[in-house]
């Protein structure tokens, strides 16, 4: 049955190719050529704009790039430190919030309500406000034993905010697992907690890896906001260099660094998803 369908499709392709006067190679050739043409036109328009010289000198100065890059790269280590530590906490806390939200029955209503209020508030308030309020406000209380370190408060603020976003991602994952899975686990005698831990959550988390990565990438960018507290992270350092030289190229250095970590992370996530799928469906005839 599968082979018959396959044969029919081949015939259709052949027929269409004959009508259009070509096969696959020609279609590919046309699309490549047109893409190249569009980009060439764009490049021409930009480089022949009246202000191009100044823009190139101001934003793409190679000498300035080389001069600023080492220091900005060093400052970038602070961004890396902040998002690495934050993400570890976020992934755990968000799971707790998501599970709290899923607790059933009237006895758990206060916990559910708290989780909902938390998620609503911290998704609603702008990130930069939370960072500013915590980073400047908390140390201003002058209570003993409260750290004044900007890195500390930056991490606290980012964790509070992103836990709210990621908890919603987890919640979507949990709800996407068919209730029959939990029913099957419960019917074997597993408690609610065990069913969640062994059956529901492993499936839920696997399903939401792409949006989890999305939020992680967002977090990486938002570490730049911690600069308002004074810490010299990559964006702050680029601003220092830019203001000193009146040249914006240092911002490009920071941009390059941010993109450089995003791309491998995205490919790594693709690999994770592919590997999980291959392992589960190896040899399956769809």
């Amino acid at each position, binding site marked *: 049955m599968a082979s018959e369908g396959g044969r029919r499709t081949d015939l259709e392709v052949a027929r269409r190719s004959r009508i259009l006067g070509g096969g696959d190679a020609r279609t590919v050739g046309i699309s490549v050529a047109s893409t190249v043409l569009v980009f060439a036109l764009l490049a021409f328009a930009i480089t022949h704009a009246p202000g191009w010289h100044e823009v190139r000198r101001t934003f793409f100065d190679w000498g300035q790039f080389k001069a600023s890059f080492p220091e900005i790269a060093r400052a970038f280590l602070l961004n890396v430190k902040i998002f690495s530590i934050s993400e570890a906490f976020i992934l755990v806390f968000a799971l707790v919030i998501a599970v709290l939200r899923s607790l059933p029955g009237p006895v758990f209503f206060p916990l559910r309500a708290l989780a909902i209020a938390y998620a609503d508030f911290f998704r609603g308030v702008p990130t930069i406000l939370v960072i500013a309020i915590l980073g400047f406000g908390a140390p201003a209380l002058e209570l003993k034993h409260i750290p004044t370190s900007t890195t500390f408060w930056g991490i606290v603020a980012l964790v509070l905010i992103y836990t709210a976003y990621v908890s919603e991602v987890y919640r979507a994952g949990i709800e996407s697992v068919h209730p*029959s*899975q939990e*029913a*099957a*686990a*419960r*019917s*074997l*005698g*597993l*408690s609610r907690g*065990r069913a969640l831990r*062994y*059956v529901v959550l*492993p*499936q839920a988390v*696997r399903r939401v890896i792409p949006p989890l990565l999305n939020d992680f990438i967002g977090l990486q960018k938002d570490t730049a906001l911690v600069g308002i507290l004074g810490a010299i992270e990559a964006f702050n350092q680029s601003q220092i260099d830019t203001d000193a030289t009146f040249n914006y190229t240092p911002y490009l250095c920071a941009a390059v660094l941010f993109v450089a970590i995003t791309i491998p992370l995205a490919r790594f996530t693709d690999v994770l998803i592919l590997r999980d799928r291959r*392992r*589960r*469906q*190896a*040899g*399956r005839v769809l």
Partner: protein
Amino acid sequence: MSALEVEDVHKLFGRLEVLRGIDLDVAEHEVVCLIGASGSGKSTLLRCVNLIEPVDSGRIVVEGADITRRGVDVNAVRRRIGIVFQAFNLFPHMTVLRNVTLAPRTVLGRPRREAEGRARELLARFGLADKSDDYPDRLSGGQQQRVAIVRALAMEPRLMLLDEVTSALDPELVAEVLELIRELAAGGMTMLIATHEMGFAREIADRVCFLDEGVILEQGPPAQIFSAPREPRTQQFLARIVAAGRM
């Protein structure tokens, strides 16, 4: 002491009363088949016995213990009763072996090697040994359903509830599952089976109950129910089954 006593159980879904007073006793080692039209309450009854659905009134007693009383340990009850559903519900992120050993290891606390040993024995007994390390996606429907039954058996239940376990299978895969159930019955497992497979019910059941609109309208040995049903509605139901070529 009977394995299962169902006393005047009523169950409502919203305003719809699905079970309108079920009375049923199942003795140890007895195989009871529930037949009836869709919506007659067969699945609901099984789910009530396993406490997946709470009953609205009435009592269910399993091996002398009232499982419908307040404060009963639901998980403990479910350990003693195995249930298998129409949609196999294997855990897709675990291998077959892990599917089978999950509950014994986490609920019964069996050490890994012991749990895996027993699991492999069970799987081998039902011809699934070579599938132990595969993921459920790789198995056919019949194989998956058999794994689901093995998974329930691994908990060594005293009572097995089978809810139309062959209804979702392609016809050529049904036989292997029925074979497995036959073996279980021969081994003395107490079973309550909801099924559309009339031929099978006739062969395997000690008693057949016909459910109609939430009550057990008629029950008796298979020979009596299938050949000489007393109630007109039973007769109508069986006539429809015969007309559909399913008996």
